[in-house]
């Protein structure tokens, strides 16, 4: 316990008497198929009911934020995408946008469209991977196998567009690295149609599945009151009926020119959260089509900054944010006017979702549902440990 008066911050419940023989400690993770990424849940169970949980992170610490303080701005560019495997593009975009904002660098129109496309494609890939995880965590691994394949189809497209499958390293300060390859639109459309078929099937086998319904409905309910208290963002919030989406509220890149609604549900339990994400997956497909339609045929895609080997960014600080699949993702960048960033703080949505919120929601759930609950919050430990 930290020194000082902590009476204002009481523990959420009275201490459990572990000596009583009534409770048992179980570790879920750090190596466990039921946790997302590398983190551990220290569960205290009574029978098969979870009565207390402590989350443990630290298994995945790579020190990115510190590394970047010793790198020039351009050298941070290959690092940021590695913060998050399922959705590296958000990191790339936010780092580039923050740098551009402080440096006063405008990016060309075409680059904005290409960035929007890349971001939306990565949202699609991330959602598809998440569906597999959600189904798998409830024992329906078949869906997981389908989705991994389909994610790879999208990665094929990324490979074509950016030159990389997982870490795209595409959006660098000043724009993007290359234009669309020839015939990209056609192949993209093919994959989108394939994905639509997949989503139809998933709708049948997952969302119209009595087992899924029985386990997911009413699991881990987030009330609208909890949203601000816990700092909850993204689909977790929208499922609770709150219309919050950065793409709509504070549009960045080209989102203001795209036609879409914020998808909400009435009650944020695991089932509705899944449903919101599922519908956002469909929305992503639609948005990609809209982007491809609006994409300028020609134009510059890169506005060269001063020599990147000694690029000094004027002193200042900024916070930029974007809507990732898991919710608001933010970069806080501080420059002291030198060639190196003074501080880059990465604020991923999982920080609250996987620690504070999960510890709260997990109480009184069944051990078997812990994995499903965790995935239904769509947590991603890499962004907790930058």
């Amino acid at each position: 316990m930290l020194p000082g008066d902590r009476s204002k911050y009481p523990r959420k419940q009275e201490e459990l008497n572990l000596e009583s023989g009534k409770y048992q400690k179980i570790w879920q993770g750090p190596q466990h198929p039921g946790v997302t990424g590398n983190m551990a849940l220290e569960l205290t169970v009574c029978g098969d009911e979870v009565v207390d949980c402590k989350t443990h992170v630290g298994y995945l610490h790579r020190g990115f934020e510190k590394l970047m303080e010793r790198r020039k701005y351009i050298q941070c560019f290959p690092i940021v995408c590695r913060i998050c495997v399922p959705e590296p593009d958000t990191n790339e975009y936010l780092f580039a946008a923050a740098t551009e904002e402080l440096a006063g660098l405008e990016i060309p129109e075409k680059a904005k469209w290409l960035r929007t496309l890349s971001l939306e494609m990565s949202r699609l890939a991330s959602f598809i991977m998440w569906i597999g995880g959600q189904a798998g965590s409830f024992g329906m691994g078949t869906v997981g196998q389908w989705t991994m394949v389909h994610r790879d189809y999208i990665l094929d497209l990324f490979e074509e567009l950016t030159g990389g499958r997982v870490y795209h390293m595409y959006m660098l300060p000043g724009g993007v690295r290359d234009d669309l390859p020839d015939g990209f639109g056609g192949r993209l459309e093919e994959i989108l149609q394939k994905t639509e078929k997949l989503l139809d099937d998933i709708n049948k086998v997952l969302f119209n599945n009595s087992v899924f319904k029985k386990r997911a409905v009413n699991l881990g309910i987030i009330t609208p009151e909890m949203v601000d208290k816990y700092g909850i963002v993204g689909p977790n919030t929208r499922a609770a009926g709150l219309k919050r989406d950065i793409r709509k509220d504070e549009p960045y890149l080209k989102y203001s020119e795209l036609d879409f609604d914020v998808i909400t549900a009435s009650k944020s339990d695991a089932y509705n959260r899944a449903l919101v994400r599922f519908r956002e997956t469909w929305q992503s497909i639609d948005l990609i089509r809209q982007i491809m339609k609006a994409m300028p045929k020609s134009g510059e895609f890169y506005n060269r900054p001063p020599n990147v080997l000694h690029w000094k960014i004027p002193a200042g600080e900024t916070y930029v944010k974007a809507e990732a699949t898991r919710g608001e993702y933010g970069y806080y960048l501080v420059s002291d006017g030198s060639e190196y960033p003074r501080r880059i703080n990465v604020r991923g949505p999982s920080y609250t979702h996987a620690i504070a919120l999960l510890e709260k929601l997990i109480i009184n759930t069944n051990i078997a549902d812990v994995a499903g609950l965790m995935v239904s919050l769509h947590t991603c430990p890499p962004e907790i440990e930058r």
Partner: protein
Amino acid sequence: MSIKDILSPFYVWKRAFSKAFTTKKPLEERPGARRYRGFHKNDMEKCIGCGSCEEICQNAAIDLVPVEGIETKDGDSGLRPKIDYGRCCWCALCVDICPTGSLSLSNEYIWIDNDADVFRFVAGKEEKPWDKMEAGYKRKGDYRLTIPDRIEMEMLPPETGLKSFREMVKGYSREQAQKEADRCVECGICVATCPAHMDIPRYIKAIREDDLEQAVELLYKTNPLPATCGRICTRKCETACAIGADGEPIAIRWLKRYIIDQVEDKQVRKILQQKVFGENKKKVAIIGAGPSGLSAAYYLRIMGYQVTIYEAHAKPGGEIWYGVPAYRMPFEDLQAEIDRIIDLGVDIKFNTEVGVEVSFKKLYDENNAIFIATGLTEPYNLRLEGEFLSGVLTGLDFLEKIAKGKEVEVGEKVLVIGGGNVAIDAARTCRRLGAEVEILYRRREEDMPADDEEIQEAKLEDVNIKPQVIPVKIEKTDGKLKLIWGKAEMIDQGQDRRPKPKIIPGKSYETIGTTIISAIGQKGEYDFIPPEIKDNIGFKWKRIVTDKKHQTGDEKIFAGGDIVNYTRDAISAIADGHNAAKGIDEYLRSDD
């Protein structure tokens, strides 16, 4: 929950027979996408070993190493990137920054070996299956991280320039200079190429950081005539510049000029004053106040020697004063620069020709060391009939007369024979005197030894260049001069050698002019040295032979500048002066 929710999941069987996505390696191959970032390729011929890839690599995966078969030379460090695949993250920033465009990535992504050491390899050296692959990540079109375009230097338009001897180049503003300085990748290949080994990347960095006093210090470390070199240097550094490999080289010369133009004379003097340390009683005589002599004088002076320069002319600077027209090098800038050196305590005796006003023997006996930097003062003869007719001048004499402010009547049409800088300077000077000018050169235009920029500027000033012309005879007709010449054909001399011009017999041509200026080169003149000393010095092809310390066969005598080196330019002369100063210092200290 309905019955549908129980039946619906059985749809999973539908996909039981769908085609697998996995590739059956090794039966099937899946090539990477066209712009996939796979293994490195490097075009060893194109690569200059500048190390920009090493500089940008955030993982320190690239190391520049010497490679067998690749020699260090001007514009090539002789090193090549060695890539460590234990560290590489395939971001390809090395490709984006590569100034030459030699580095690229193939789309090959599988490489299996049981020896972990092979994954540290020099791309392009060891043959790899992907070397020949066309697809992969390349720097395309305009996309690159280096900045290929130079900040344009403002100049007087030719029409205005021709009206006077006003300086043509206007110089960079602070903003322009900083922008130009920003383009530098700090590879330092220029440093090795510069005869004086000036610390170019560091003074360019000082410009970026607006620390011009630091920049001045850096300039004077290796070059006491920065304002001169900032204007008329032959700038070998720019030929070697990495950015110049696929773009316009950094305007190193103009940046140097910017530094010295911006810092006040008072401030520069203060910096120089601090450099003089110690005084010793040893005396050094320097013959000739040209760039080499002045450079030696400066470095010897700051080392504490008692330096006396003997100069035959009334003004210092040698060829810079008398040979370079004022539109390229204004007299007041040159004077200010030289005064800064003289005022450090250098004794300079003008109008004192060694061998006439003062004997060489006297200098030899009264000084601890002598530095000869007399330059090339004797123009080569055309060896033609009619060469000594009135109206036929030599380029050096002509430029000297102009520099002395004498009136020279050239008439309405001048023919200049030669293709070097003297020829161009003479031609452009004649244009300013109002004459029509034609340059006659025996080789092709691309063979002209004159600076390319000068040739272009001369053309803008309507100087007509006639290549492959071999003069045969000069005659006088109606008070004008008639040059009879023959057309030359170029005889191939094999690789790396300029083709040789040979006159096509049978046909001859004529050109009429009022004045003919011959500027086909010049040689050294050594009659001022007494024969007994001359015998010890050692000559070869009319040049003085010296060792690396610029010491001649007579240990007391050092020599430098055009009479020693083959590059025959100001910067080499300055470098010679510096090296000779070091040599003299070493020699005189060994006496102690």
